[in-house]
């Protein structure tokens, strides 16, 4: 599993995608927060006028919706297209080891991206009193959210076998999960489904997690979404053998 994770990380770092991801992610968060404001709302650190990082962390889901599908889209389609999947799957490694190895490589890269954004809370901390508890909570939440997005992207890559399709479908699904539970979106769905939509929403759970309340139910939710999509990925690989 670690060998596969290393292999994937190496190939990430050999391609521009890893650097684009890191730069775009850091730039998006820091830029939106300090300079041009959050998409659709225009609030920045300066307009909020306090040292709460709520606005800052609310940028994470929207950045992830675009950037993580881009990161995940190459993990399977590249192997399937070049035929190396036949090498990989005929080595004495189990399908779940391959899937988890690829997932791990993506998680490392997401963690690295989050690490690169640490100067933002540092800067804010320099302006005034910053409560670091919620900050760490929000970073953990971000990693869990990233993991869920990544597992969806990984699965879609294996299913679609094609980068662009995988990217679009993954981004659409992630966006849906983020928008669910939003008051505006709830206008369009029957009232009876609001509870379900709220329960499945990534945003509301992410917000709770980010307020420094590391809720077992929320972590468990992100963990299970990730696990489900990783398992679906293994199932796709196994089913393909019989196809």
């Amino acid at each position, binding site marked *: 599993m670690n060998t596969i994770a290393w292999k994937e990380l190496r*190939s990430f770092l050999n391609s521009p995608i890893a650097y684009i991801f890191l730069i775009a992610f850091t730039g998006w968060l820091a830029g939106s927060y300090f300079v041009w404001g959050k998409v659709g709302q225009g609030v920045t650190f300066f307009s909020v006028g306090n040292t709460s990082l709520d606005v800052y962390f609310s940028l994470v889901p929207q950045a992830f919706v675009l950037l993580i599908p881009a990161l995940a889209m190459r993990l399977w389609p590249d192997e399937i297209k070049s*035929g190396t999947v*036949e090498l990989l799957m005929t*080595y*004495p490694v189990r399908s779940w080891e391959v899937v988890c190895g690829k997932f791990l490589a993506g998680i490392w890269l997401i963690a690295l991206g989050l690490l690169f954004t640490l100067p933002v809370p540092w800067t804010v901390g320099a302006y005034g009193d910053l409560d670091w508890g919620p900050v760490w909570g929000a970073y953990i939440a971000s990693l869990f959210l990233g993991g869920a997005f990544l597992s969806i992207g990984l699965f879609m890559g294996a299913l679609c076998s094609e980068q662009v399709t995988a990217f679009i479908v993954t981004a659409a699904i992630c966006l849906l999960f983020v928008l669910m539970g939003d008051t505006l979106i709830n206008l369009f769905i029957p009232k009876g489904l609001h509870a379900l939509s709220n329960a499945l929403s990534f945003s509301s759970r992410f917000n709770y997690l980010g307020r420094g309340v590391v809720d077992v139910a929320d972590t468990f939710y992100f963990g299970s979404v990730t696990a489900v999509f990783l398992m679906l990925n293994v199932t796709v690989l196994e089913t393909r053998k019989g196809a």
Partner: protein
Amino acid sequence: MSMIEVDDLRKDYGSFRALDGVSFKLDRGEILGFLGPNGAGKTTTMKILTGFLYPTSGRATVAGHDVMENSVEVRRRIGYLPEHTPLYDDMTVSEYLHTCGRLRSMSGAHLAERTKIVVGLTALGPKYRAPIHTLSKGYRQRVGLAQALLHEPEIIILDEPTVGLDPNQVVDVRAIMREVGRDRTVILCSHILPEVEAVCGRVIIIDDGKIVADGATAELGRQHAGAAHFRVEVVGDAASLAVALQTLPGNPTLGAPHSDGATSSITVTAAVDPADAAAAIIAALNNAGLRLVAFEPKHASLEDVFRKLTRRKEHSA
């Protein structure tokens, strides 16, 4: 115990039946040539043996392990070079072999030593630090071979290993196959017949998902010859040669006689026992008073057998 046992293997892709009841056994030390036209089921069989695909029905075991139930054990024992030699292009040869070794749970001194041996065997030394995407087709093929041999597998499966190589490289790759085939089981998938004749002791020919011939390479030609071929050359003109052979028993097929100054030659194909046919031809020439210059029996080559067994109906466009 056989190294490989395949029993009544079937594989359907949707409504297309790629394999239709394939069975064979292979012992240690055998080099098997697995022949067939494109789309006959060669690659599908190899993909099932390596655990990449599951059969629709039937059973296959490798060193006693079932390919479906004990896939990892099977894959441990096989070195596989898939068709088209897929490789991780962004790695260097050394990184690639290292990764392959790690995926096979090799490490440290053992991996280093084995790497050195296979790099020597496949003459990859000069390109050891080169990125794979910069390599020529011949070198790529050698990297694929090195990868397949790295873990000293008991069984080596090579799918079209010499496609796209120049004649020198082909000779090199064949030498490697013969070398490793001395104490291992090798399956060589190919439709390059001289290659199979040169390297393999045994041949299986597959067509439309069914095995149509299975036997020692040398035996096959004899078994499937079906007809006796001779080239006859005599002193005299072509017309008298043709006339002399017209009364042969069994109504043989005569080729167009060919005159070359003082001598004339003709090919005779008779659907009878070769020894009887030869005796009849010589008797006929004696009766006609023609002096024999050359008399060559032509054995069916593997190519003839292959063509005969796998020729399909021509599809009109």
